[in-house]
């Protein structure tokens, strides 16, 4: 794509966002909605900028990020491990496949009360929920990535004298990396969403909790701030993951 096309794309993409903000501003400045219901965008962003430098808000972001990363890391380790194992061994596959079939469409939020009762109201229950929700996309894409590895690659590695037990880590895993990263990307967005929801349902800290406390006291401005923050966090994390992807896949042909 040439520079001009990229600029057109960029400008076109800005339009709906600008329109949305303009509409938002218009509704509140023409008085269709009282400030208590829909605060003007200027006020919300000003509040966001102001909040970002307060200790309590940073603490909330920290708590949310901690839970997000803990849950996401568990999901990556378990998902990639089980996915690879299922792809490598038909016996494991026969056990894992039906269980995943049953558990994947199960709404994991419904398990949240059970997690609360079993592991407590602290960090652990939120981390468990994030891990449970992010696990399946990562597991499935690892599995499909690993089963799609070209047989020729494995044969050449064997012909070159790679021991059987090393093929999994030297050939299959690297070849499955693009697919695994796609799964991680879905899992990451899910983690963002789930951690926020879990904090909204029961929590004493974190961004979701901020939204709930603001809602209880009808502080509309403070309700928008955590939502915008989680959206920004999602975008930043997504960008970081893209950078990791670009680094890991630097030797790959077009992906």
């Amino acid at each position, binding site marked *: 794509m040439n520079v001009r096309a990229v600029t057109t794309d960029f400008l076109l993409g800005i339009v709906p*966002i600008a329109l949305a903000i303009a509409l938002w501003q218009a509704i509140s400045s023409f008085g269709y909605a009282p400030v208590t219901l829909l605060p003007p965008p200027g006020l919300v962003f000003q509040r966001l900028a102001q909040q970002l430098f307060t200790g309590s808000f940073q603490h909330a972001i920290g708590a949310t990020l901690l839970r997000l990363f803990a849950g996401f890391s568990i999901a990556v380790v378990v998902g990639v491990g089980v996915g690879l194992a299922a792809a490598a061994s038909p016996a494991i596959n026969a056990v894992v496949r039906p269980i995943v079939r049953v558990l994947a469409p199960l709404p994991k939020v419904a398990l949240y009360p*059970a997690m609360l009762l079993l592991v407590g109201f602290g960090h652990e229950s939120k981390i468990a929920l994030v891990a449970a929700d992010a696990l399946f996309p990562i597991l499935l894409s690892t599995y499909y990535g690993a089963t799609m590895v070209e047989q020729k690659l494995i044969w050449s590695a064997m012909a070159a004298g790679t021991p059987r037990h090393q093929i999994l880590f030297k050939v299959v895993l690297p070849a499955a990396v693009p697919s695994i990263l796609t799964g991680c990307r879905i899992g990451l967005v899910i983690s963002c969403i789930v951690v926020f929801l879990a904090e909204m349902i029961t929590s004493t800290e974190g961004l979701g909790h901020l939204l709930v406390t603001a809602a209880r006291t009808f502080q*509309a401005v403070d309700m928008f701030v955590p939502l915008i923050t989680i959206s920004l966090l999602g975008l930043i994390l997504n960008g970081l993951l893209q950078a990791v992807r670009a680094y890991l896949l630097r030797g790959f042909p077009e992906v």
Partner: protein
Amino acid sequence: MIAGRALLSRSAPLLACLGLLAIWQVAALILKTDSFPTALEALRAVPSILGDKESLINILASLRRMAIAFSVAVAVSIPLGLMMGRNRYVASFFNPLLMITYPVPKAALMPIIMLWLGVGDLAKMLVIFLGVSLPVIYHSFQGARAVEEKMLWSGAAMGLSAAQRLIRIVLPAALPEILTGCRTGLVLALITMVTSEMIARQSGAGNILFNALDMGQYETVYAMIIVIGAMGIGLDAAFEKLRSRLVRWSEPGFDIPLSFA
């Protein structure tokens, strides 16, 4: 032997369900805490929930909201996704907006939407609508983008207008991918429904679940988890059946949905 094997592979999900329930039962027997009843105790509480008129009406009302919101979302998202897939300008118009809204938890909009629309059905349906539309748009977009150009050229050569090409060539060609999106959307609709009811706490299945938790009726909590879980698995299996009939001609893709919240 072949029949036996087919039977085994067909009943494997059922066996997995039984296995998970058995693990639950054993774990509960070992832990022996009040807040973790055994699987049998929870299963025994299921009929009393479904038999209770008020909770049944609540659950059915939840499902009705979900069905309406899901249908509207699908009806809006598929045309939008297809147009994005076929037209670069439409795609670059909507893509950044969708990217920004993607990581926002839709159910978290519940408190704000409640301020505007009240706690009624409309607010809940709007939230479900928002949750369902993104994956459906995304998959329709991907599906429409992958349509072979040659087919469109032949269509144009035979005198089909742009709108006709969209309906008669792009829609069928993208159908497998669209249905994958709908399947994700369906699971998502259920998740958003439960979560929004957990947050709004006024009626519905999510409300029953969390009220039971607050009142310490642990058997009801676990029974509700079983009910909601069964809904998820049942809806997904039903949709998969429908999908495999509609697009029997296409090679099977992911046979497990990449569901998410």
